[in-house]
């Protein structure tokens, strides 16, 4: 990626969601989670899949971070930073709506 890095943080109140035309699916033949997008396919590792799965448009970013921190007994600040960075990258690629 040659995109300009974005530093703007994600609002805790925003409800991230996958736009129409972007889907997270599990595919045995391809060996795991993949994010399907217009004419592009991204392999998602287990952590990315856990984050993206929660982007339903219902939960706020703060709630998603809380849920991840509970599920993986990890420090909230660390989760917020990692998940925020991923969501920002996805949004810049038009794979996520914030």
């Amino acid at each position, binding site marked *: 990626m*040659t*995109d*300009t890095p*974005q530093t703007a943080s994600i609002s805790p109140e925003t409800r991230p969601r996958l*736009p*129409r*035309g*972007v*889907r997270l*699916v599990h*595919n045995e*033949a*391809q060996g795991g989670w*993949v994010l*399907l997008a*217009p*004419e592009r*396919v991204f392999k998602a590792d287990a952590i990315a899949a856990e984050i993206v799965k929660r982007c339903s448009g219902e939960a706020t970013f703060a709630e998603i971070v809380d849920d991840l921190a509970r599920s993986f007994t990890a420090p909230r600040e660390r989760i917020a930073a990692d998940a925020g960075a991923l969501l920002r990258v996805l*949004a*810049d*690629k*038009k794979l996520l709506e914030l």
Partner: protein
Amino acid sequence: MTGNGAALPRPLGLLAELTHRCPLGCPYCSNPLALDRRNDELDAATWARVFREAAALGVLQVHLSGGEPAARRDLVEIMAAAHGAGLYTNLITSAVGLTTKTLGALADAGLDHVQISIQDSAEKSADHIAGYAGAFARKRALAAEVTALKIPLTVNAVIHRANIARVEELVALALEMGAARVEIAHVQYYGWALQNRAMLMPTREQVEDAVKVVESLRQRHHGRIVIDAVVPDYHARFPKPCVGGWGRRSLNVTPSGKVLPCHAAESIPGLEFWSVREHSVAEIWTSSPAFNAFRGTSFLPEPCRSCERREVDFGGCRCQAFALTGDARATDPVCQFSPHHARVVELAAEHEDRSYAYRRM
């Protein structure tokens, strides 16, 4: 030689050329010079079987293309079958002949994405390149219909000498049409484009300017629209990893059912292609002679054999190697290390201003 071991990769994408019929006559069309006739086209039930077999093999996305896919009256049925097989469905259309009613039915049946081609940002030039009066207006109207249905839109702009000065305007038009993604795709010289090469070829200065413009537009529109570029490879120093490597990531089914590793593969003489009329998609992927002809890199001669980029670009494009050197196994002569590279440099400097040989049945 088979070239495939236990770790044969699974294809990700399938290009379904539903028909070669098309109202447009673009002089760089990627269809072969010998076009399939309507009577030879696969029926919808066969396409449905192909989609189920492809999904079972690991294919995730199907690109419904042509010709103009809307020339098929059973397009909605075919799309629904792909969706039903669990595939991500992408409709690649010229917009001409795709009615509002059909688009609505496709949306209801689960269509994931639409790609519309545009020939230029200026109407008169666009219709001249397409060889069809009124095409430009129809494309803009369809884009509005697609975005109103909330279906994501990609605009595909094929770039050549007649429009290369308007890359900025083309991206602006894509934004205005509501696209989240735009392809700035420099002409690749196969089939019809090879016939029209000297009429389409941009100058080196134009190519350098266009590359700079794309870079600056990426900065300017970051987060608003994704700009994907297909490089003008006659002006490059290294070849493209064509189709991500022969028989590695994708397959292409022609209107009559032949399965090709890439859309131009039939230009290489001596390859044996299998048809979905006689074989399953999995059998073809693993065992058809054409797919195994250039799998991997072991067939490559020097300078590829000892090159560190061998697993990056797989020696470039087989069809281009054949078209320009007469040997499909040779290093793609776009590569600066190819003994034939000087010929590519010469061809990149050949320009003629005759009228196009339009693609016609």
